[in-house]
């Protein structure tokens, strides 16, 4: 996994207000802080969030 994508994802997650909750399918409901931990660990949830953010960046490039 590219380090740059991970760093960028963490930076974007830091911009999310603390009171926001992100429900990811059947996996659970997470605060932005919890998602940052998952991204740093590069576990299943973390990898998914990195993928989501990376796909969005690609989408923006194509616009």
């Amino acid at each position, binding site marked *: 996994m590219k380090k740059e994508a991970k760093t960028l994802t963490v930076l*974007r997650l830091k*911009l*999310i*207000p603390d*009171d*926001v*909750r*992100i*429900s*990811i*399918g*059947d*996996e659970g*409901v997470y605060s932005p802080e919890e998602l940052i931990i998952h991204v740093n660990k590069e576990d299943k949830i973390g990898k*998914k969030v990195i993928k*989501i*953010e990376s*796909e*969005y960046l690609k*989408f923006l490039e194509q616009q």
Partner: protein
Amino acid sequence: MKKVLITRPNHNVPTQYFYYWSKKIIETAKLMEMDVLDLKVEMANKKAFDKAIKSNPAFVIMAGRGHFKKAKMADNEILIEQEDCGKMKSKTICAFLSKSAEGLGEKSVASGATAYIGHDDDFILCCAPQKRSDPLLDEMAGFFLDPLRALVEDVLRGKTANISTEMAKKALKENIKKAGNSKYDFIAPYLLWNMKHLKCIKKERIKLLLFILIFSMVFTNAISFCLDLATD
């Protein structure tokens, strides 16, 4: 009178939101003089679902916990799984269950369902449950749920499953732009994810898969036949 079966559990954040958001779907169905079989909260269970499905509803709207092969409610109770998909014959299904489109969806359509609309990966919802006591006032969640509510209402009003899904994808794309230019810009990646993974499974797709399978089998046999001839 057409019947609509809707399951509305209310046991976690996403189902709580859908529980409230689907009230308008129920109002629309009633305005269209449809008979609504509303399995809400504890009634969203297998026993009640099996009883309701026997009354042959034209539309089945399911919210709950998703799985590739199953729809689950509270306490992991399985509502329906691939082996039971025959029950979905002649029904249009809108499923707000993560990952269910590929497995449960394709099997349902192969077993005779008219169409299955759902996600083929995790459905994501960004919301602020602590800030808003009423989920309907949560503007952020509206970006995710309004297009899906409109999708179901379009299906009930008689639009085809394909057109309704495409319109929902278009609405999600507009919401990505709107969110991107608002204080909610951080939700745009998640809206894009949901848009990409929203699928409409219809018989045509199953037929196409069967055609590809049969064609590849014939093609493989033809190649091996030619190779046999060449070696002889």
